[in-house]
């Protein structure tokens, strides 16, 4: 028995799992970091709440200040929770696409899924300004799925090849981006400014409604992705080998892509395009726990959550009282990292 694998196995019922030892350690570490940053983020603001009082308030204990409950539970907590959930969803979506497309650069932001979601939402804001904002998430969602379906159909040629999917995806990403730009250029100035805020990716003013809207997607998407971790492992060896060891490649890949688009779409619908999280989080997680997906998926999820919560906190503190959207912060970090990886891979 290798000393570095944790094995859970029952002698009575046919249940067994294995995990690299470092995975639970990393999850514990990331989890504690997230808790610390969450508390700091809720405590920080125009009306500061001491970190300890944040904890007491969240736990429903008496702090002696009647305002805290409203500030913490109604104003700030849902916002940071949305940031956490959005980060987790984007990270899982990115881990899946990078795994099945066998390309560490292939995150949903890069292959056009997020761009499709954004285009649909911007079209709605600018072309139909009268329409209620509440259907924005649905539009974003439909947009993401439409682009994904088009990519898959166009890339399909007697089977889906990962390279073709990436290339067609980048093409679609550029095209939808261009159309979004046209809309922004020619749209009514008031509608455009509203669209731009959304495009930059922000968790500003998000409430418990958004938390509630996101939770079911993560509740279904993350376990589904975890159940398919072995298929992701198989697919990352290449189609021929995946088939060779018995994975029904086409429909497993299709199913995984649907999970990825669902998670990315839900995230974009809630917070706009928070760039590069789906791309960076899996990278960091791979450095932490290696490339097997049983450990990679949960680690990437927590990394992504931590990234967006941190980005939101940095965005609020950096030029306070002016607030930077967290999407700007993640992009400012992610774009140079993307270039660095491109250059590194060329050498």
């Amino acid at each position, binding site marked *: 028995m290798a000393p570095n694998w944790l094995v859970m196995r029952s002698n009575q019922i046919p*249940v067994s799992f294995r995990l690299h030892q470092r995975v639970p350690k990393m999850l514990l570490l990331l989890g504690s970091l997230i808790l610390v940053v969450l508390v700091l983020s809720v405590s920080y603001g125009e009306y500061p709440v001491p970190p300890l009082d944040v904890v007491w308030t969240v736990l429903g204990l008496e702090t002696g200040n009647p305002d805290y409950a409203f500030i913490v539970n109604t104003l700030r907590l849902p916002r940071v929770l949305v940031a956490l959930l959005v980060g987790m969803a984007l990270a899982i979506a990115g881990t899946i696409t990078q795994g099945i497309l066998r390309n560490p650069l292939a995150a949903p932001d890069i292959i056009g899924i997020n761009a499709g979601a954004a285009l649909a939402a911007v079209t709605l804001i600018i072309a139909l300004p009268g329409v209620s904002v509440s259907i924005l998430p649905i539009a974003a969602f439909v947009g993401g799925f439409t682009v994904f379906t088009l990519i898959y159909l166009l890339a399909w040629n007697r089977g889906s090849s990962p390279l073709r999917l990436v290339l067609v995806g980048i093409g679609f990403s550029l095209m939808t981006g261009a159309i979004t730009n046209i809309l922004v250029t020619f749209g009514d100035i008031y509608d455009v400014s509203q669209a731009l805020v959304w495009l930059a990716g922000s968790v500003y003013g998000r409430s418990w409604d958004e938390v509630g809207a996101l939770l079911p997607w993560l509740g279904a998407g993350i376990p589904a992705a975890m159940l398919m971790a*072995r298929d992701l492992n198989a697919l990352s*060896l290449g189609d021929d080998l995946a088939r060779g060891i018995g994975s029904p490649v086409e429909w497993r890949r299709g199913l995984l892509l649907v999970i990825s688009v669902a998670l990315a779409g839900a995230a974009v619908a809630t917070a706009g395009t928070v760039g590069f999280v789906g791309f960076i989080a899996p990278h960091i997680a791979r450095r932490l726990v290696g490339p097997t997906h049983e450990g990679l998926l949960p680690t990437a999820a927590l990394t992504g959550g931590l990234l967006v919560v941190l980005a939101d906190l940095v965005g609020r503190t950096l030029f306070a009282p002016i607030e930077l959207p967290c999407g700007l912060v993640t992009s400012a970090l992610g774009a140079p990292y993307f270039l660095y990886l491109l250059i590194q891979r060329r050498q």
Partner: protein
Amino acid sequence: MPQPTPDRSHARLEAQRLTLGYDREIVVRELNLVIPTGKITVLVGPNGCGKSTLLKGLGRLLQPRSGAVYLDGRAIAQQSTKAIARQLGLLPQSPTAPEGLTVRELVAQGRYPYQTWLQQWSKADEAAVERALRMTGMKEGDAGDASLENRPLDSLSGGQRQRAWIAMTLAQETDILLLDEPTTFLDLAHQVEVLDLLIDLNQTGCTIVMVLHDLNQACRYADYLVALREGHVFAQGIPNEVMTEAMVREVFGLESRIVRDPITGTPLCLPISRWYEGHHRVAEGF
């Protein structure tokens, strides 16, 4: 190496009127082939003759245009890919693994066809992985974390890496193994290392079908040699029968001399190039 004609009456893997192709191009046409059980079969032929395509067809990586591949009398296209993976393992040409994947993690993936959502690492899985690692020499040294099994695949030499891939297919515990040019990009010593490992496997009862580029290696290691030309079987049988000057001329378009390999007694093909033909004439002129 004695080479009796293999018994073909109990064949498990068989192609019947098999037609394979990509897009509009047909590569293998109406091909019949019976793979002798428990033997090493080597497919040879010039580039583009369809030997790799045929291997893909035998391993259900390519859907037949017509005809079928039969495993134990049942068409493989009609069986679940997972069920087949428990009987037939395959290794494509130059496979790639994600960066940082360790040998042990790779080999464990060979257990995919035996696992379910709840049963992901049974005692049988563990035993099979241990056996595969030991057989391929990936446990040698046994210096804890420093032994080969715990090293990332990308830190190994070409020969070690190929052994790791073979270990993965071994963990599948199949008694048929298909390999597409398992020695490409390896230096000579590593080529022999990998081919000898395949002989070891064959000794344990595993049927092996592989594509090899080197005709002399093919003759040395094959119990059964299949020469392909333009998607047809041109000749098949024991190497001594198949490997003739006429076959090399017809299949490869090359003049050659066939002599006996001084080490194994198998046929050894010495190609005659234009350049040597010229010299020969000059020599005669003297």
